[in-house]
């Protein structure tokens, strides 16, 4: 176990930041361009989790536990948000019998 921990500690902070940004961008692109609402929800989750990774990396870098505590709050809130989101999705499905986002076009003006 010990060699793994030392190996992880040698990863520079920039790599974590870069990885977070890449994951965030993938999530962002997916949320903007995918048409299936369930995939969009997954992309939103990816964006949240990339932020969690970033917060943890900064927290370890600064030796400050605040960032890791924040991650717990983020996970909690993201779970609550997705619960509500899936419920709304089920309601949509019952009304239009589809999960395609292109169905969301009746409110116009």
């Amino acid at each position, binding site marked *: 176990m010990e060699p793994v921990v030392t190996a992880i500690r040698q990863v520079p902070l920039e790599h974590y930041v870069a990885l977070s940004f890449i994951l965030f961008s993938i999530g962002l692109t997916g949320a903007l361009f995918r048409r299936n*609402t369930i995939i*969009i929800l997954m992309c939103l989750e990816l*964006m949240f989790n990339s932020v969690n990774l*970033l917060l943890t990396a900064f*927290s370890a870098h600064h030796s400050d536990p*605040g960032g890791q505590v924040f991650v717990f709050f983020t996970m909690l809130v993201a779970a609550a948000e997705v619960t*509500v989101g899936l419920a*709304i999705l089920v309601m*949509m499905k019952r009304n239009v019998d589809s999960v395609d986002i292109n169905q*969301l076009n009746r409110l116009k003006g």
Partner: protein
Amino acid sequence: MSALILTSVLGVVLLYLGLSGNKSILAPTAIVGLVAAGVMSWTGWNPGLMEFPTMLKFDQMSTLFNCAMIAVTVLLFLFGIDYYRRMEENVAEHYALMVFSLTGALILTSYTNLLMLFLGIEILSIPLYILAGGKKRSYRSSEASFKYFLLGSFATAFFLMGIALIYGVTASFDLAVIGQKVQAAPNNVLFLLGAFFVSIALSFKVGAVPFHFWSPDVYEGAPTLVTAFMATVVKTAAFAGFYRFLQMTAMPPALSDTLLVITILTLFLGNVVAMRQSQFKRLMAYSSIAHTGFLLMAVLANSAMSWSTLFYYTFTYALATVGLFIVLTLAKRAANGNEAIVIFRGLFRANPWLALVTMLLLLSLAGIPLTAGFVAKYQVFMLAIGAGFIKTAVFAVFMALVGIYYYVLVIREAFTPAEETPVLVVSPINWLVVSACGVAVVAFALWPVLVG
């Protein structure tokens, strides 16, 4: 602090009362609880009192904002007695979710830590996603709910990214500590990016252009009472949160310029697009975007006194909006669910007093002298000029003149005689609330001292 605890407990109590199946006790309980919370908030005022050890600060600003938001919610619940009478199921959940949302709003006015800002925004938003879909079997309502949810979560992701970047630079979530560290190195790119992301997310919440596109759809699709709640309490809380965030440090020029562009776009698009609307709720949505533009000017001026202007503006705007949405609901019932502006035709002949109050409320939104809307706009312009945004202020005055057009359009409908004038059924409580709103917008204009 006790007000915050009381509102969160009140929500749970309301949920349990819903199990009893007796709808008529819900609104009185909610109103009594909120009045108690308002009194606690008022008497608990203590300059610089910190709670949780330093995450919330209850100062003069948060006390006034909290009391105003609680008062507006009480007005909405009084209207709710009549509004929810026709609804068979889930009435308790509606009241409870609105109270939970209000709890988030109370946190947003008093946070001093980014964690509390995040929790406040989420506690404010998540109940709203559900409330927007309050009419379960209506397609429009569920579409509004889903759109609001998707764009809201999207904004939350940006918001979290911004917080993470700010944390990466300063190693703290506390606004005071962040302010000090940024003062030492004001042009850190990561910090600017973080502040920029957080500002984008907050612009989403207040409905500023180009992040406004959800608001007309959501306003139109959501149940009218929820729309009124979103246009008043939610907007007030979001602006209080925005102001507190930008107050933490002297605003970097890059951020200030971006916000200036957003302000100008918001003023222009809100007012110009509102002129072309024929549905009343969409008109109110664009009018609310236009008001966001004026409020952003006050935020942008970023002086220590901006908050009192923000408070006066949001409170008087909220009073006028609540009154108008009640009148809309009454007129809509007489017109079999139609929400176009033409349903106001003949209102003066049918209900002269209601038509006069409607006129007052619309004039206040337009900012005609002798109404509170004028005093509010005047204060914003003075603030902007004092901060050196003279060109923006001139542009905003011009846009305010454009804005008068579409409000007068509605007033003209109300005073045009119609072939048949259905008399609106107005319950005594609704009459009282609408009249109180009408009297208040004039009273607050004559004695601005009254509200600070």
